[in-house]
């Protein structure tokens, strides 16, 4: 299906528009949707994260560690994730943590969980010292690359850890 606005590109964003008591469906390509102020992330059908996912891991960000080739637990690759928008298992989060942080910042405006902690038996909370060391290293890298937005966030995280 062609985009209804430019008539050229493939329409991948399908919207409900409500006007005058009528609900109509509008089909747009990613570019036109972005120009209309529509976040592709919520509306792209088959890959719900659209462009964000497609760009994942291609441009490394300040303070990010390199991502693994494939998840050691389930074998999923970043390529799989780009294609489906879905991770294969819990270990994928660790294997691809670097690129995922960048994605999370764009999706949620944050990379750190602040909600309820899960402290069931047999699942020890993270080693705080190790996290502080990791955050300090990332903060230093962010500052040296003048990524101050990220640096500010990392500084806040460090302060929370005391």
């Amino acid at each position, binding site marked *: 299906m062609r985009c209804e606005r430019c008539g050229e590109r493939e329409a991948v964003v399908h919207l409900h528009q409500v006007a005058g008591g009528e609900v109509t*469906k509008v089909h747009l390509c990613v570019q036109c949707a972005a120009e209309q*102020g529509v976040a592709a992330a919520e509306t792209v059908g088959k890959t719900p994260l659209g462009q964000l996912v497609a760009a994942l891991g291609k441009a490394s960000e300040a303070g990010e560690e390199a991502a693994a080739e494939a998840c050691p637990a389930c074998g999923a690759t970043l390529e799989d994730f780009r294609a489906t928008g879905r991770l294969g298992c819990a270990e994928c989060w660790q294997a691809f943590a670097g690129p995922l942080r960048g994605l999370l910042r764009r999706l949620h405006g944050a990379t*750190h969980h602040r909600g309820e902690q899960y402290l069931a*038996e047999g*699942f020890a909370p993270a080693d705080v010292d190790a996290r502080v060391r990791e955050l300090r290293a990332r903060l230093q890298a962010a500052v040296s690359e003048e990524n101050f937005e990220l640096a500010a966030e990392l500084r806040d995280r460090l302060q929370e850890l005391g």
Partner: protein
Amino acid sequence: MIDFTLLPDGGLAWLDASGPESHLVLSTRVRLARNLRGRPFPVRSGVAEREAVLDEILSAGEATRPLRAAAVFRLDRLDHDERLQLHERHLVSRELAGLEGDQAVRPAAALLSAGPVGAMVNEEDHLRLQGLVSGLALEAAYREVDRLDTELGQRLPYAFHPEFGYLTSCPTNVGTGLRASVLIHLPGLVLTKEITKVLQGLGQVGLTFRGLYGEGSEVVGNLFQLSNQTTLGRTERELLDHLGKMVRQVIAYEEEARAVLLRDAPSVIEDKVWRAYGLLRHARSLSFEEAMNLLSGVRLGAGTGLIREVGLYALNKLLIHTQPAHLAAQTGLALGDAELPRRRAAYVRGVLAEEAGRRGGGPDAG
């Protein structure tokens, strides 16, 4: 045939219009996405793995208070129409019911349902827990699902990461895994053409909207589901408070729009709601879309006190039972049967006549 009598109130207690702001808000749902540690997510699981996950969750569920007496539905053992019925009751997603395009229902896809709480198993995540209550009641819905989550979490090893929180298959759900949504009727904002502005405004404050059936669904009958878009970086309370605050704002806008309509165009509105009521009382054939739109008009009439012949509970029940799969099951006809629109009209006429008689109103109070 699904035996809905296994469910208290057929899983429809949330329709009773007993909750706060029931004249505008039909229901509040809070869902939590959870996965089990050490197992691939359902999208990357084979049949054996999915069966093992279901077994583990079923035995953990039996040991919890909220799910001890749950009805268990294996979606992969139900036929298409039965799965559609569960979806029409808002108990399962399109994805779990295998209703998405050409995608078949997945192995070991299941629903555990008990009163206000339910658990979808082997959807995109191992577990999607939900609390569903009447009216605008974010606290109550969260309390229900949180209680279930706490008990299950003591018996199942959840996948949790100190930095990312509860791990999910899709990064849009990670962190709290919490998606709260409020099903709200906004005909005033649609009629005054303010709705687009309001919905855009919601986008700017991190909220999103969907149609009656959730993700990817059309907006029908002026019913909108408003929900939080982000799940990470804020606490559960903050997410709920923010959504609650914004929904109350939308309610204020809707009330204002209704007041403006009744003040500036009373005869137009009066005609509109009574015309909708008249059509529903007398039509001989109704498509689902037409029924939904007319019911929206009558709901506006009931909500503004113009129509007293019908209550919100009856309107809520009509909303569920005029849906294609419900109507087909009730009449014994096949989905898509050309006779269904006539049966729908007959059913609506019957319910409205009985309701008018019960409430002591004549066929026309105007």
